[in-house]
């Protein structure tokens, strides 16, 4: 029996109708495409009236297939599928033609737009006839959530979920949660003490009955899909038995080996070989740094073991693989600091008194290596003048195109702290001052009043080569003052480089483990940059905080909470729909060549050695269709994208094409189909 196809063309106000003659497209489809029994145009198909029209036609005209030419299927495919379903038609017997994003918005010419619209509608109408009814499956959502990254974003997300009563596994790769925020002294623009607002959240997470804290651990492997991920976590050996350790700190105190702390103190301070990164660390259990531990390197020492009152030191401890099952995953893996040595003209690593922003944070911090005293590298001299250079590695085509979003405000904060703690003059060399959040601009005004000097211009060079006696023994910052229109040389004692916020180096690897992608720069890609900023293209995997793009603490907290809300929604719903777009193998026709076996990235194709055939495990198949295209016998079918459907669509979109070079003269010929020869 022939199908009865309904074609609906949307005006989208004037969005489509402006560059596509929608009435003509509908008329043409009704008259020229085989099996089309209803063809209509309507102002707004997605409105309730438009949907009602489709539903009514399905019932009255006994439509067996529906095509809607409107916006992108990524916007309204679901809407019209639901309309079909409401009228008793299987939602997978519907196809959507993208006449707005792919035609009207990109065409200037109405005639060309109309022709392209006709072709796309023809493609859909031909395709839809071969579509088959499909039933989505539903899987239960496991109530537990995995959160990767224990910075402020991950902590916020974990607490939101845990407070709502859901179990959370919080994985952090360093020995303590807290992230970069734990390293800061003050936070802009309110100047609250960073530790004072962060540590309560850290200890709450550490003690929460619903949070399993896995510090010094890394994500090893993720399998499964939304609702039911199986996750392997590598818990690195601490060489300290967690259940026995009381966190008294005697081992750290007595450890004879001192090491430069490159992580938490940014290379400015020391730690021991057995250490907790900072006093408020959560958990308070130290770790042994094997590479620097005298016992591990030379086989002698064992001081920590001797002094431990609870015998918690275990030199034989091994990495442990923990397997957990979760319904959703939130990635909050944060950022890393740009390597300022990559900008050699600023002298970092060569000129002693050039600091990075992270070093300066530690310098200001009352718990830092200098006890909060701002001093030069000699450890005692207070600087008389400080230059802060913005945009080091950001807004720079040689390194990162993006704006790191927080440096302007952090520079103002540094300016305030220097003016407060020393008598130094502070110069800020900026390209643009970006203070566009709540109370940020006010903070900038405050610094202008406090007497910080602002020079608008990108710094060319920081040098110690003096040209006159005033510059002797100083660092000279050479820059063009673009407001004055002339070169300036500013001699200072100290230079602070505002290094860029960059994506973590292994962000891509982790993304691949979880099945999400990164931008070219390495930021995780969100589902929609504006309307869906924490979801990703992979259901059940969410991103939050600076791993998605540079942002400040309030934005990180908001995203952490947003991701948690999304996960909570999934848990409350309890079930999640799985699209029935999967591959299947006709076992009777399969030759057992096994070509498809190795093509599947999800190991969803198993080989039945007894029957000598391959078989798709549909719950693991994600529907990419690679095996379908590869099968030499053509016996793998990709539901909703099978060969017949795509071939028909090709025929449809090429309805007006003439093989063997016939398109060359097409411009003069009429685009109407030629009369049928009798």
């Amino acid at each position: 029996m022939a199908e009865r196809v309904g074609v609906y063309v949307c005006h989208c106000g004037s969005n489509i109708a402006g560059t596509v003659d929608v009435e003509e497209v509908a008329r043409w489809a009704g008259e020229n495409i085989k099996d089309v029994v209803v063809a209509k145009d309507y102002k707004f198909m997605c409105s309730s009236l438009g949907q009602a029209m489709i539903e009514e036609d399905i019932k009255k005209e006994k439509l067996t297939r529906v095509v809607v030419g409107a916006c992108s299927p990524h916007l309204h495919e679901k809407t019209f599928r639901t309309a079909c379903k409401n009228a008793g038609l299987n939602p997978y017997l519907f196809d959507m033609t993208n006449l707005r994003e792919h035609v009207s918005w990109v065409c200037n010419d109405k005639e060309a737009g109309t022709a392209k619209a006709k072709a796309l509608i023809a493609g859909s109408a031909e395709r839809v006839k071969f579509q088959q009814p499909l039933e989505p499956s539903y899987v239960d959502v496991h109530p537990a959530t995995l959160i990767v990254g224990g910075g402020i974003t991950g902590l916020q997300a974990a607490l939101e979920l845990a407070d709502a009563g859901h179990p959370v596994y919080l994985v952090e790769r360093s020995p303590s949660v807290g992230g970069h925020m734990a390293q800061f002294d003050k936070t802009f623009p309110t100047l609250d003490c960073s530790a004072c607002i962060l540590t309560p959240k850290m200890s709450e997470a550490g003690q929460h009955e619903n949070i399993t804290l896995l510090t010094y651990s890394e994500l090893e492997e993720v399998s499964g899909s939304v609702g039911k991920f199986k996750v392997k976590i590598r818990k690195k050996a601490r060489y300290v038995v967690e259940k026995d350790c009381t966190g008294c700190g005697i081992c750290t105190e007595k450890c004879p080996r001192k090491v430069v702390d490159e992580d938490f103190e940014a290379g400015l301070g020391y730690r021991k070989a057995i250490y907790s990164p900072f006093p408020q660390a959560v958990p308070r259990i130290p770790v042994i740094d094997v590479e620097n531990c005298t016992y591990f390197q030379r086989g002698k020492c064992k001081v920590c073991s001797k002094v431990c009152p609870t015998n918690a030191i275990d030199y034989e401890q091994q990495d442990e693989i923990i397997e957990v099952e979760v319904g959703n995953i939130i990635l909050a893996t944060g950022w890393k600091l740009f390597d300022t040595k990559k900008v050699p003209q600023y002298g970092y690593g060569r000129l002693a008194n050039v600091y990075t922003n992270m070093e300066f944070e530690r310098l200001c911090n009352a718990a830092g290596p200098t006890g909060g005293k701002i001093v030069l590298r000699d450890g005692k001299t207070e600087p008389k003048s400080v230059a802060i250079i913005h945009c080091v590695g950001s807004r720079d085509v040689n390194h990162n195109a993006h704006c790191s979003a927080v440096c302007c405000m952090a520079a103002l904060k540094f300016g305030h702290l220097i003016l407060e703690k020393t008598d130094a003059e502070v110069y800020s060399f900026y390209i643009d001052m970006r203070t566009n959040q709540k109370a940020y601009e006010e903070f900038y005004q405050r610094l202008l009043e406090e007497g910080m000097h602002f020079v608008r211009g990108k710094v060319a060079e920081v040098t110690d080569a003096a040209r006159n006696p005033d510059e002797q023994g100083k660092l000279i910052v050479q820059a063009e003052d673009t407001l004055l229109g002339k070169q300036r040389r500013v001699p200072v004692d100290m230079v602070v480089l505002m290094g860029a916020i960059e994506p973590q180096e292994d962000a891509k690897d982790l993304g691949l483990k979880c099945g999400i992608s990164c931008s070219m720069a390495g930021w995780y890609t969100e589902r929609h940059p504006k309307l869906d900023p924490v979801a990703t293209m992979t259901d059940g995997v969410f991103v939050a905080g600076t791993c998605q793009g540079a942002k400040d603490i309030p934005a990180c907290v908001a995203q952490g909470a947003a991701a948690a809300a999304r996960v909570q929604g999934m848990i409350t719903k309890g079930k999640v729909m799985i699209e029935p777009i999967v591959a299947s193998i006709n076992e009777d026709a399969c030759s057992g060549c096994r070509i498809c076996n190795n093509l599947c990235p999800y190991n969803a194709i198993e080989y039945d050695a007894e029957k000598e055939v391959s078989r798709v495990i549909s719950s693991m198949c994600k529907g990419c269709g690679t095996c379908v295209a590869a099968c030499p016998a053509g016996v793998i079918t990709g539901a909703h994208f099978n060969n017949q459907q795509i071939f028909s669509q090709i025929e449809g979109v090429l309805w007006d094409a003439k093989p063997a070079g016939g398109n060359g003269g097409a411009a003069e010929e009429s685009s109407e189909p030629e009369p049928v020869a009798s």
Partner: protein
Amino acid sequence: MLRKSLPSPSRLRPEAIHKTNNNTEKVLRMSNENFEPKIVGFMCNWCSYRAADLAGSARIKYPPNVRIIRVMCSGRMDPAFVTKALALGADGVMLAGCHPGECHYIDQNYKAMRRYHMLKHMLKALGIEDERVRLFWRSAAEGEQLAEAITDFVGDIKKLGPLKWDDNWEESDERLKALEAIVKEHEEAMEVN
């Protein structure tokens, strides 16, 4: 079938003229100016199709010649889709997927790339200019770049002129070499371990 009669053969054969007579180059160019190629674009659901959506949202204009068909992944690209499109009268076929390493399905775009190179040899062996098929990598954020790719590709196909299979059909070393290349690549693709 949608088409209700067989298409009429074309009278102009610009490429044949091009080979023999310099004076007729003008004729060729004029005919190519009128020539609006029909191009089928296969785009993956996650990156390139969305890039095309983004180009639309940003109102970036590009030539209307590419008719986009959505597939879930560039890995779904069956070389038969390309040959089918060319046989039905497409003058070019555009393939687009996520950037290598950014595939929504982990690494299936590499498989598309593998097939693409094999397909190019196959087209040569069939006597079709292999430039008529091109693979692009465009992420969902690259609307502008996708529009650029379409503009470039349409321009290049216009320069090539309409697909004229029969004119290109001649026995030559090129075709033989291409055939050998297919056999070689096929061996690799058939490997099962």
